[in-house]
């Protein structure tokens, strides 16, 4: 169990607890984690980060300086902060007794997953600027990404932008303006570069 700062989504479990749970193959099942959306989002992110960082560690061990563990720690801390439910973002309704919303945390996870789905890309931070609680108000999205240089940077960034916009159009009713992508880390596949 945890103090409030470490508590993911009011579940009573910390990032370290979730990491252990993932390592155990989510067995035995813990209902307080399995019924909590922020814990589930964190587990999905841990899985993706672990996949790419394992690959980087394996490659870097042979070809370049090792991946900085504090970088992974800072990334996971950022993810934990951003996956908190946050504000309720409304969907349009015609019935005054009905309220339909999606959480800001769910949207940020959507953006993060869309970015991570591009091969060689890992999203660092993600923010949605603008008043998301007002239907029709324009919002902008800002992402930082780490990349493995498998394609030109501009091409990777544009693919991230396209996928993020597509997911936001599908699952939200936000008026999405600019999607700003900043590349903060570049990893090179040296062996492939040389061949």
């Amino acid at each position: 169990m945890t103090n409030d700062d470490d508590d993911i989504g009011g579940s009573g479990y910390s990032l370290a607890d979730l990491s252990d749970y993932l390592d155990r193959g989510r067995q035995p099942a813990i209902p307080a984690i399995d019924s909590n959306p922020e814990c589930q989002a964190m587990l999905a992110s841990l899985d993706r980060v672990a996949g790419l960082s394992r690959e980087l560690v394996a490659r870097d061990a042979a070809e370049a300086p090792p991946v900085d563990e504090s970088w992974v720690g800072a990334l996971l801390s950022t993810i934990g902060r951003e996956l908190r439910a946050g504000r309720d973002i409304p969907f349009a309704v015609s019935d005054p007794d009905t309220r339909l919303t999606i959480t800001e945390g769910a949207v940020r996870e959507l953006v993060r997953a869309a970015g991570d789905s591009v091969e060689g890309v890992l999203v660092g931070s993600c923010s949605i600027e603008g008043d998301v609680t007002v239907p029709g108000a324009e919002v902008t999205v800002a992402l930082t990404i780490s990349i493995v240089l498998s394609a030109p940077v501009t091409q990777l960034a544009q693919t991230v932008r396209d996928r993020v916009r597509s997911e936001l159009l599908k699952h939200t009713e936000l008026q999405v303006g600019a999607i700003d992508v900043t590349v903060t880390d570049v990893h090179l596949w040296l062996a492939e570069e040389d061949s």
Partner: protein
Amino acid sequence: MSELAVRLDAVVREVPGVVTLFAASPALVQSVRALTAGETPLTEVRTTDDGLTITVSIGVHADAQAPVTARLVSDAVRAAVNGPAEIHVRVSRVAG
């Protein structure tokens, strides 16, 4: 109210596009033992002077559309409730 909440849990789980039902309020997960035994509904149902207030928290499949799924859930809940009710459907995750 607990009986209605259990029934609504089942109704919501049957809606196309819904992949997970989450606890509508963290307070609902206070008793892990009760949750494990399936005794704690995840939908929140409260009684007010004006009728019922119902809150549902769902996970939507990535292939579905969150706004459409939320509307389907709201329609299904309203059809299952007799009398006036304020319904809040919150999409808490979208995942494949």
